[in-house]
């Protein structure tokens, strides 16, 4: 079956294509076909997982050439190793649950079929990302999940907030992808391959200088920061909650946002090779985790609380992976890799469940605001109980699956007191805000009587997926029981297997921390012993800061978006006024120059021509009278000539040659003679010749 693992992503793609082109008009068929495809994929994933276990995790790889270039070959292929097999399971399981749930949730939506088409496209992209055998291919699917996320966040695009949110999500993650791309270019340049095996081999062999490797690892991590909504690119994820809730569950909680974690886990060799890069990863992870948890404490939108919780938990995983790289590069043992991937898996189940549960609640009361809820336990029993199971799981209460994975994450901070302290703080806050949510939603008196009365439990098609995920939220973590000799840790191990040991001290501490978080929430929101309002008043500035999410959105608006847009407009002005201005000026100048030329041509050059013509004509007008045809006149003319000649001949003796004077006198005398001749002839034949010149 592993051989056919490439079909696992292709089946949902088939669903997408068929729905878009053929089934679009038949809603029932569209949804059922999409679900059938993902269930087949799920069955195949189970078989692949079993086979991988049977092979003891030996990887399977197959590929075809995407493009063949002299320096290197880009390929598209599949790699099935334990990490892949586990991810396939996670994605298909949550995917199938979400699709079934969507039948109920999206019931009556005018774009029902389209929703299933998009979900199928997403599953194709996500599964493709998971089975990829090289960094180039993972990037392709990385972008495709971004596209589907864009489409699904903007599914209800008539809402301005949704339209804004999808654009924001796409562009923000693309900023991270920029880093990923540059990382890929460095990989291509320094390593000449994108294949996981090839890259890791060369990195392990030390082909790349340490500085370059660090840079490369950090750039690749940039992609993870975008996709997994890590600080400082986390701003898109809360807004992404504008999408339909099943989407939030599948994409923005369980699978796509985990892709960043998956990427870091996949390329862990890069981080093992670079202590600095690992440290960056770990620090970003913990900063994100703490930041998001603090924001989640005060939010009132049920989905946004969960969104910040997701960011926080992803930070956890990222930190664990970073610490693994850090410790391993220094030669220490670390549980980080195992903890990160383990938490990735369990988180997918319980966070998917939380979102679906939230969707069920929203379906019941038609609001996202927890201040308008309350007392829903009696109305929506299954939703409430499954939600609380997930809450216990995420809080890390024994023996829910979250307990085991969270414990490992905390354990991976061993030897780093600051990290350990902060992870415990986050664990406390997580328990607190989750149970704040639970108590405000399901317990107490209904705060909005009207909504409460109309609330009802969701249909079976929605509650069954909840129950399945609840089951997994309890038991999925048991594959990683520290007492199992061949549990999760030895299955997904990377490099040297990490032998997990049950640390009773750790377990006790984390349970106490989580339990106290729940207790505080209980006291504040159930027993009302501590007044939340008074706390709010007391810590007003902090509350405001947290409520406004540290003003990140405003900061980016003022610091990044506005300047870029302004710069764009400036460039546009520059283009229109300066560059095009120069072009138009050249054109204008040419025209003006041409006008000057034309004037010059008309009055000076042609003027000279016409002037000489005029001169000739005038001269001719005068001289023509010499040609009178009168014998007497000619005789007189000759006589004058002789006389003049005589005079000048005589003068020559004294004054030598003066040709100019001579000629002037000659011409004058000719003119004089002409005048005389005219007088003699008395205006004879005057006007006819005037126009003869052309």
């Amino acid at each position, binding site marked *: 079956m592993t051989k056919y693992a490439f079909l696992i992503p292709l089946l949902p793609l088939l669903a997408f294509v068929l729905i878009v082109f053929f089934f679009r008009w038949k809603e029932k068929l569209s949804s059922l076909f999409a679900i059938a495809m993902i269930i087949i994929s799920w069955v195949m994933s189970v078989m692949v997982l079993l086979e991988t276990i049977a092979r003891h995790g030996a990887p399977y790889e197959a590929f075809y050439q995407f493009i*063949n270039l002299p320096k290197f070959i880009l390929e598209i292929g599949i790699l099935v190793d334990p990490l892949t097999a586990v991810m396939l399971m996670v994605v298909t399981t949550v995917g199938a649950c979400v699709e079934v749930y969507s039948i109920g949730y999206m019931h009556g939506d005018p774009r029902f079929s389209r929703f299933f088409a998009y979900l199928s496209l997403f599953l194709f992209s996500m599964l493709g990302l998971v089975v990829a055998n090289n960094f180039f291919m993972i990037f392709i699917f990385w972008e495709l999940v971004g596209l589907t996320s864009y489409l699904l966040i903007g599914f209800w695009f008539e809402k301005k907030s949704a339209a804004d949110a999808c654009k924001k999500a796409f562009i923000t993650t693309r900023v991270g992808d920029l880093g990923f791309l540059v990382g890929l270019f460095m990989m291509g340049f320094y390593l000449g391959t994108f294949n996981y095996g090839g890259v890791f081999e060369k990195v392990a062999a030390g082909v790349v200088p340490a500085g370059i490797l660090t840079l490369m690892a950090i750039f690749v991590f940039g992609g993870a920061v975008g996709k997994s909504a890590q600080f400082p690119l986390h701003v898109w994820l809360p807004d992404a909650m504008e999408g339909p809730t099943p989407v939030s569950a599948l994409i923005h909680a369980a699978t796509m946002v985990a892709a960043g974690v998956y990427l870091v886990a996949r390329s862990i060799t890069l981080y093992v090779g670079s202590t600095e890069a690992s440290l960056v990863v770990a620090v970003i992870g913990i900063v994100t985790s703490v930041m998001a948890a603090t924001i989640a404490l005060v939010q009132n939108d049920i989905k946004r609380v969960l969104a910040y919780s997701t960011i926080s938990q992803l930070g956890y995983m990222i930190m664990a992976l970073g610490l693994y790289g850090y410790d391993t590069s220094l030669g220490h043992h670390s549980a980080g890799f195992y903890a990160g991937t383990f938490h990735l898996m369990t988180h997918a189940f319980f966070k998917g469940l939380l979102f679906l549960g939230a969707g069920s609640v929203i379906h019941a009361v038609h609001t996202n605001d927890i201040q308008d809820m309350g007392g829903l336990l009696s109305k929506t029993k299954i939703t409430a109980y499954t939600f609380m199971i997930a809450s216990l799981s995420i809080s890390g209460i024994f023996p829910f699956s979250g307990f085991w994975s969270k414990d490992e994450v905390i354990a991976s901070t061993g030897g780093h007191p600051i990290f350990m302290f902060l992870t415990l703080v986050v664990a406390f806050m997580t328990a607190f805000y989750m149970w704040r949510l639970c108590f405000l939603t399901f317990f107490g008196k209904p705060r909005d009587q009207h909504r409460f009365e109309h609330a009802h439990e969701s249909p079976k098609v929605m509650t069954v997926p909840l129950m399945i995920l609840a089951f997994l939220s309890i038991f999925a973590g048991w594959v990683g029981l520290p007492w199992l000799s061949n549990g999760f840790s030895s299955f997904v191990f990377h490099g040297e297997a990490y032998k997990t040991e049950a640390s009773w001290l750790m377990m006790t501490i984390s349970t106490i921390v989580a339990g106290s978080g729940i207790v505080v929430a209980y006291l504040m929101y159930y027993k009302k012993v501590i007044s939340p309002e008074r706390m709010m008043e007391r810590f007003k500035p902090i509350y405001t800061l947290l409520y406004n999410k540290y003003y990140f959105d405003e900061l980016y608006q003022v610091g990044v978006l506005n300047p870029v*847009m302004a710069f764009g407009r400036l460039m*546009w002005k520059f283009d229109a006024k300066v560059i095009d201005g120069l072009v138009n000026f050249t054109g204008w100048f040419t025209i003006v120059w041409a006008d000057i030329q034309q004037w010059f041509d008309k009055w000076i050059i042609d003027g000279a021509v016409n002037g000489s013509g005029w001169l000739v004509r005038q001269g001719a007008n005068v001289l023509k009278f010499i040609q009178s045809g009168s014998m007497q006149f000619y005789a007189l003319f000759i006589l004058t000539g002789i006389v003049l000649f005589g005079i000048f001949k005589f003068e020559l003796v004294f004054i030598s040659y003066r040709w100019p004077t001579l000629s002037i006198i000659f011409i004058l005398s000719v003119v004089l003679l002409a005048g005389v001749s005219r007088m003699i002839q008395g205006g004879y034949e005057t006007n006819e010749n005037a126009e003869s010149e052309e």
Partner: protein
Amino acid sequence: MLLSSLIFVPLIGMIVVMLIPKDKFSTIRWTSTIFSMIPMFTSFWITWDYFFNYSGSAAMAYVEGPFKWIPSLNVHYFLGVDGISVPLLFLTGLLSTISIVASFGINKRVKEYFAFFLLLEASMMGVFVSLDFFLFYVFWEIMLVPMYFLIGIWGGPRKEYAAIKFFLYTLFGSIFMLVSILIVYFTSQPHTLNILTLIKQGSALPYTLQMVCFIFFFISFGVKVPIWPLHTWLPDAHVEAPTAVSVILAGVLLKMGTYAMLRISWPMFPKALHSLSFWIAVIGVIAIIYGALVSMAQKDLKKLVAYSSVSHMGYCMVALAAYTSATAITGCMFQMVSHGLITGALFLLVGVLYDRAHTREIAVFGGLSSKLPVYSGIMLLFSMAALGLPGMSGFVSEFMIFIGSFGVLNKVLVSIAVLGVVLGATYMLRMVQKVFLGEFNLERWGGLTDINLREIITVAPLAVLVIAIGVYPKPLADLMSATIQHFITLVVR
């Protein structure tokens, strides 16, 4: 004969169209469609045949001539194609037919329109198959004439301005080309205008002369690309031109610039290229970022697409600067083809909307997705292709360009160019959001109808190709790999 037929069939078509009575619109339309389909299928066949029979070597295929044309000047009729011209022939053939079909809505002076269009097609084909400078120059210049009239007669409100600007700008470039051609002609021994011979001899030119010729050619080809800052004719011409002409402008004409660089000035003057490559890269990077930023500020749909062309052709310039990398040059070719397909489709789609709404102002639309789902879906597909989404051709070309140039050019410079990826997403998605998402203005746009079958037929082949190249680019890369290898040996002399 195949290559000649590419030029002469449209020419014959033009004559036939001119003989049809001018009020028989439908006859004129279908005649020109048929006469543009013949060269289209010929170009498909050439692509197919070239791929299987000739792509293994860099030698010119389907060579015709050299036949003596003007013996005293040593001018020959000399045609031939190789791996870098075949994809462009394919593109020209396809886009010409698509444009003609997309022009069926033209009702003003129909006969002249289609006659000019066929002349345009003939001259474009001529540019891509000529191997003689004189011939090349003739086709390069002839192309201006139908283009001038197509913009000037059938264009938008500022058509005269746009047409004359386009005409003069290109002519301005052509002067430089003519001077360079004369220089290489008179310095060659014996005097020849054979491009292949000149490439062989070209490297023997003294350095200064190489620089002069290279820069002159660069300016003249650069106007067509258009390189920054010689690009301002493009937005005006694109915006004012009728839809089909914009398609040809963006899809084919811009490629003539980059093609000519690959075919002529790059291999002919390797020394000059070597000293100037950094600055070419800088110009390319400026175009990428600048074009994207300016696109972001556009209010007119067509102008946005036009400026995105400036940005996209910037990628080609970056790739051309990284001339020693076969990957980058292959990427450049991919970008040329891909940009032709994607931008061609975007112009067609903008035209579809304009035909219905009679405005292209981004701000007046909104929420079209709910009323025009098919149109919006197709537009979204091409917007995604334009912003370089994987699975489509734009991604493949951008990726190859970056990865090829990263190893050759200044790494910081390339990293800056990568910013274009985010900016590209920004302006495209901003447009998508404003036009297709949000609330639908039922009162104003309630009468809009979705894209019709004829319009779907015009964009469908482009969509198929964009996805096909994006999913399986290997055949296209294989088709030109030998030629590009040969090209590299020529430029690294």
